[in-house]
């Protein structure tokens, strides 16, 4: 195998691929990326068996073929090359690079041992706007569970496609994020389709495909248990989580009886200050709503007392409710709006948070469970 390409192209392709590679893998070849040359294009592929990323870039092919190189090492090397042209030739055991006045040989592993691409049988598909999809991913996946012990389902994010709408939901049982927008191209099948996608795979989709105008999403495999996300040069294939996602609709109260509208950045700043004091008490802050004011308090025997006063637009009865400040701040920082609305039912019932004015074409809301004192 032998090809010539731009150092910039290959550096960004290998850089993106190397982020997929599991540094602790016990299977040596999974630490490598696969480079395949043919038809005037070069493909870089990385996989951790759950998630596969492939990136294509142009080049001049002298001899078609494949080589595998250690991902971290090679990406580190490429990252330190200056812009220019390089030549790469590969054998089953060696990858040799010539670039300006540098010559490097990297130990390689036989490319035929590299895991094959996931099943290519295509199922139903739809398309989303890349930039909007990235916003949605960023606004939801943080709420997913990060604890393996609580199961892969809660570590995943639900993608629910129905008609021309996509809904994303993530929850760890304490907070829930829900985000909706319209598809660029509707699903080519009737009814609601649900996929539970590992949240870290969606993070890779946002990172690698977030700039694309259109991301094609296609179910793969005879059982449809894989999902491919593809735009111009990049595709990501992910194995879906097998399981039943909780019926999240049931934890979102249909109605609330009181609410406050409050300046987002003022609330975030107040909560962050109060949380400093509440640190050793499970970050507990109390929020009291009365007389068009929101009072935030926190206290701890070791640090002291916090008191914050904010002007709000209050509707409905007064209320005192306690939250984990960290959870609330995390939600608020994902709402891109100058003012938010918090809705309540009572001190032990779920509260809802949403932007006061929703951005066009997007519906976004969060549910947070309070603390019991």
């Amino acid at each position, binding site marked *: 195998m032998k090809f010539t390409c731009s150092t910039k192209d290959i550096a960004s392709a290998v850089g993106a691929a190397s982020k997929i590679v599991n540094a602790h893998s016990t299977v040596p070849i999974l630490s490598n990326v696969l480079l395949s040359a043919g038809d005037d294009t070069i493909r870089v592929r990385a996989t951790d068996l759950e998630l596969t990323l492939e990136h294509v870039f142009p080049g001049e092919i002298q001899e078609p073929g494949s080589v595998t190189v250690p991902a971290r090492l090679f990406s580190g090397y490429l990252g330190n090359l200056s812009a220019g042209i390089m030549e790469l030739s590969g054998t089953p055991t060696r990858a040799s690079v010539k670039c300006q006045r540098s010559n490097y040989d990297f130990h390689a592993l036989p490319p035929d041992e590299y895991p094959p691409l996931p099943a290519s049988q295509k199922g139903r598909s739809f398309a989303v706007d890349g930039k909007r999809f990235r916003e949605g991913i960023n606004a939801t996946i943080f709420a997913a*569970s*990060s*604890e*393996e*012990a*609580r199961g892969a389902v809660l570590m995943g994010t639900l993608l629910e496609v129905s008609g021309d709408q996509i809904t994303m939901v993530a*929850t*760890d*049982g*304490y907070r*829930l994020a829900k985000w909706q927008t319209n598809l660029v191209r509707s699903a080519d099948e009737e009814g609601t389709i649900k996929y539970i996608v590992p949240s870290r795979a969606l993070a890779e989709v946002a990172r690698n495909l977030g700039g694309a105008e259109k991301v094609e999403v296609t179910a793969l495999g005879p059982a449809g248990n894989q999902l491919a996300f593809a735009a111009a040069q990049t595709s990501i294939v992910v194995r879906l989580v097998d399981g039943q996602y*909780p*019926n*999240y*609709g*049931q*934890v979102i109260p249909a109605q609330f009886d009181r609410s406050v509208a409050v300046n987002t950045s003022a609330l975030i700043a107040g909560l962050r200050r109060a949380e400093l004091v509440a640190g*050793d*008490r*499970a970050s*507990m802050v109390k929020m009291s709503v009365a007389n068009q004011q929101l009072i935030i308090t926190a206290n701890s*025997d*070791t640090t002291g007392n916090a008191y914050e006063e904010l002007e709000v637009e209050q509707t409905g009865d007064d209320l005192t409710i*306690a939250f*984990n400040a960290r959870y609330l701040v995390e939600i608020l920082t994902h709402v891109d709006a100058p003012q938010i609305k918090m809705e309540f039912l009572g001190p*032990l019932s*779920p509260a809802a948070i949403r932007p006061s004015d929703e951005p066009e074409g997007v519906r976004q809301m969060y*549910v947070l*469970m*309070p*603390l*019991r*004192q």
Partner: protein
Amino acid sequence: MIAHFDLDAFYASVAQRDDASLRGKPLAVSGSSRRAVVLTASYEARPFGVRSAMPLYRARELCSELIVVPPDFPRYREASRACFEIFEAGARAVEGLSLDEAFVEIATDDIDAATAYAQTVRDRIRQEVGLSASAGVSRQKMVAKIACDEAKPDGLKTIAPGTEADYLAPMPAGKLWGVGPKTQARLVSERIERIGQIAALSDTDLFRLFGRWGRELRELARGNDTRPVVSDRETRSVSSETTFEYDVRNLTELRQVLRELAVDVAERLATHHLRGTTIGIKIKRDDFTIVGRQTTVAQPTSEASVIEAAANRCLERVDLSAHAVRLLGVRVASLTEELTEQISMFEHKESPWA
């Protein structure tokens, strides 16, 4: 001043408090398996010879009308929490020893003021929690604890400053901290039976009998116990570990031990009314290399099952193929006080998660 509090026949008293039909009757709190042991015996059962840690079948032999009730730990925790809150009022530091026992440092040098505090605590526990507590008051920990033991049940005993050595002198040597059955047997063979005799030992005899910690022991015997009450709030982590008699390779066996360690750590967290989010394990291999792994959970926990599950995941991340294990430990850190609880969507009745 230091007060030592101990709730009288704690588990049994909670049961009797909550069920009037059990009051005044010989009662044992115990599990139900064939190998179950008595966790606590009520004072009514004790004249029959029923003691804690005794096999249940033996207790039934001794006392035919013995009533046996299963333990109810959530209730014990709740009662314990209420008592510890009472300890905290007016205390400089509270050091829990178990759910029903604590040292409290009181910010006074006046023995009468300290005694009054202890009496107030006992009264409040009776009125507000419905239980009886015994107390010992002294300048130092060990004497306070011994005095408390003597005051039981439902009593209060104060040892005035300066009289500690005289108080201790006639007591059996086994009452001293650090003198276990083995040491005691050795002492008996040397005709040393009373704490006062240890207080009078020469340096040479001390070293011969107890090795390096002999002098410390003599200080204790002389009524010089300088150990401070360490506040639960200053506890940074709680851990439990065990060294195997034989190096272990068997994963099933390691998991079994991990479970026991998790239960132990959970109990101690409960004792200090703490919960933690960082759960880790420590392994010493047969080549004496030490490896640690840790993980975090989203909600602070003191649940044995959660700690065990997390510890098991840590264990999975250790390569055990090359070496056997000499020592295994479980640790919980990033502790917070058990004052708040994150409500989960899971706990609602009409839970969609069920």
